């Protein structure tokens, strides 16, 4: 009798929480600053939505390059929500792995408040909720820029005042001015390890020349053209005035050299600001300026910039898509966005305009206000939205050939021709262009 009662009680105890949370929402993501900021809200949101949650955080390279594609191939229903970059949308949509947000009450996301939400559109529908917006730009040393002696010397040499680099030519002049290899100080540092980071400067320079690498609609490739070759020549010039560490620098080394105060500038994502201004880890904290990619010298009509956008998307294998969507709404709302900036160790570079403008968020990162202002007129450039562009062109063709190029093993002309040929081959194999 006694045993039966205890047994019943036990069953009740086990059943109670199970009843309360019979839906478990599983979130898959990488580990890292911004994904951590997203997951930090998961517990609160799960409570609000009335579900249980499970977060799978995997090493960054493996997550997006092998684990999620494998899951998309196997379709085992591992994740309800998957955290992905916009560049991978075509790939996962082609695999029918994502659900369009239009299937749900998309207004609940307050789409007008999401900066560059339009970029997540593919085949007429939206596929992810922007959580992190990372802008490409130039990090430079404000202490040197504002130094009176430097200003005088610069004026004498170049005939105009030293100020935040607003054009490609100004940037190059500044790099040349501050490049002093004999003193162990360099005009710039770039990423040079044969991996995705090496693409950053190449992409950025295209935008500084006002051109797309490839046209999203016509898929015309702009690598072996006059502008494309000028970009490579620029790259050669910048690596010529670069910290020698550039040639093997991955993300870690590139940022470490810059924050150690060895280099005047670094073309990179604004998320470096998240820790570059931390006095505990950075020798140049408080002395870093950030300039969204400057315009080309000749005035062009549309200023362009480049953006990396990450956010949670809904998996078509989810058994509870409605609950998952509710979870998505909570995870990415203004409150979550602000907490993602203020309550996490390293913070986040938020995608919501209301978060960028939030006082609490700006109290932690004052540069959020600059970004909020800077992106108003920004025309974000897009890479072709075909599945092959993310994995094959940016994953292989560009890093490999650029690595050959910066190590001096091939000329501008050879590199341009090879990259173009390899991209065209991929486009032909994919059936996008005629043989």
């Amino acid at each position, binding site marked *: 009798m006694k045993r039966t009662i205890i047994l019943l009680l036990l069953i009740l105890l086990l059943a109670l929480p199970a009843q309360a949370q019979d839906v478990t929402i599983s979130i898959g993501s990488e580990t890292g600053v911004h994904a951590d900021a997203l997951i930090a809200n998961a517990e609160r949101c799960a409570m609000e939505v009335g579900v249980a949650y499970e977060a799978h955080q995997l090493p960054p390279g493996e997550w997006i390059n092998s684990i999620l594609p494998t899951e998309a191939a196997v379709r085992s229903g591992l994740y309800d929500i998957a955290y992905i970059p916009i560049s991978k949308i075509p*790939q996962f949509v*082609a695999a029918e*792995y994502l659900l369009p947000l239009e299937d749900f009450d998309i207004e609940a996301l307050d789409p007008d408040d999401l900066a560059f939400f339009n970029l997540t559109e593919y085949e007429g529908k939206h596929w992810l909720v922007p959580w992190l917006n990372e802008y490409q730009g130039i990090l430079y040393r404000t202490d040197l820029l504002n130094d009176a002696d430097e200003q005088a010397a610069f004026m004498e040499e170049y005939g105009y005042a030293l100020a935040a680099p607003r054009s490609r030519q100004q940037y190059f002049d500044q790099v040349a001015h501050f490049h002093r290899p004999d003193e162990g100080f360099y005009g710039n540092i770039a990423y040079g390890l*044969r991996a995705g980071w090496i693409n950053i400067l190449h992409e950025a320079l295209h935008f500084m020349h006002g051109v797309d690498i490839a046209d999203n609609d016509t898929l015309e490739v702009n690598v072996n053209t006059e502008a494309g070759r000028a970009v490579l020549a620029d790259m050669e010039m910048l690596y010529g005035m670069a910290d020698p560490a550039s040639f*093997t620098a991955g993300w870690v*080394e590139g940022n470490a*050299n810059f924050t150690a105060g060895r280099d005047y500038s670094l073309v990179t994502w604004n998320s470096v600001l998240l820790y570059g201004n931390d006095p505990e880890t950075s020798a140049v904290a408080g002395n870093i300026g950030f300039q969204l990619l400057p315009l080309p010298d000749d005035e062009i009509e549309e200023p362009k910039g480049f953006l990396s956008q990450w956010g949670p998307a809904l998996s078509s294998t989810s058994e509870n898509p409605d609950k998952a969507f509710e979870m998505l709404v909570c995870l990415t709302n203004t409150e979550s966005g602000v907490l993602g900036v203020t309550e996490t160790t390293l913070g986040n570079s938020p995608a919501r305009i209301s978060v960028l403008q939030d006082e609490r968020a700006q109290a932690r990162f004052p540069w959020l206000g600059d970004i909020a202002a800077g992106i108003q007129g920004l025309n974000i450039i897009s890479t072709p939205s075909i599945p092959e562009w993310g*994995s094959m062109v940016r994953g292989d063709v560009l890093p490999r050939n650029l690595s050959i190029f910066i*190590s001096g093993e091939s000329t501008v002309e050879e590199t341009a021709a090879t990259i173009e040929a390899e991209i065209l081959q991929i486009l032909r194999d994919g059936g996008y262009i005629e043989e």
Partner: protein
Amino acid sequence: MQTGASPKMTLPHVGVLNPLRGSQRVKYWLALPAFVFIIIGIIYPTGYLLYNSMTNWSLTRLDLGQTFIGLDNYVKLLADERFYSSLGITATFTIATTSIQTVLGVSLALLLNRNIRGEGLVRTLLLIPWLVAPFISGFNFRFMMAPNIGVIAQMLDALGLDVITKTSILGSPKTALGALILVHVWNGVPGTMLVVTGGLKTIPEEIYLAARVDGADRLQLLRYITLPLVRYAILISAFLTTLFIFKAFEMIFIMTGGGPGDSTEVLAVYQYWVGIRTLNIGYGSSIAVVQLLVAFIVSIVYARLMFNEAE
């Protein structure tokens, strides 16, 4: 390798139970679980790999599905310049690492086999590089060799060799492969030393005494007694090193990613780059199959050498 006497036993039958009859069947039962395990474990992934290598499967384009395309991937591979370059780099890398490691490992074993006090401790300490996870060592060396911030670069600089640091050790196609070879030797040499030391310990002291009585000098002892007697141990360690280095991936991937350019892209890295990074499973699998075939041929050659040696 197998020196045990043949299992023909001429023992009297003892007791009620016949242990020998039992053993006839028991010997298969003993081996069966492991054999089944190994064979399934080989056949399944190899079969899957072979099948994939004959399809166009790409996780980038899952919408295209998986279609059987026969030997197309192999035809493409035979015309792939990057593949041949990679094959060449793999050969250089494997042969250089194995030979340097073997020579160095044998020298260390000899140096530490003189019954001098403290020898055991030194040998033990030298084992440590072998025991640290390769990916940790990969990052450690990548940071140590980095120009400016890296401690090795700064030491070379202090020695007045700033030519090297200015061009960056891992960042120049001229030095990157060499640096990777040295790092792999550093990592693997303790293993070679251990196996060869094992061999050295089997040589009976009497042989040396006898040879010395006959007036042999040190070099002669080494040349005519020591080395011939540890030949088999050297062969085994060279074999294990070759296999290990041939499929080495982690430290290379971490330290250079296959770059700069193509200069350190060994087959394992190329295969990763195609099969996992660009998600072209079909083509990546065909590279893997060729890699497997080459490794298999190499191990047959070694197996022949070792069987000859054992006989």
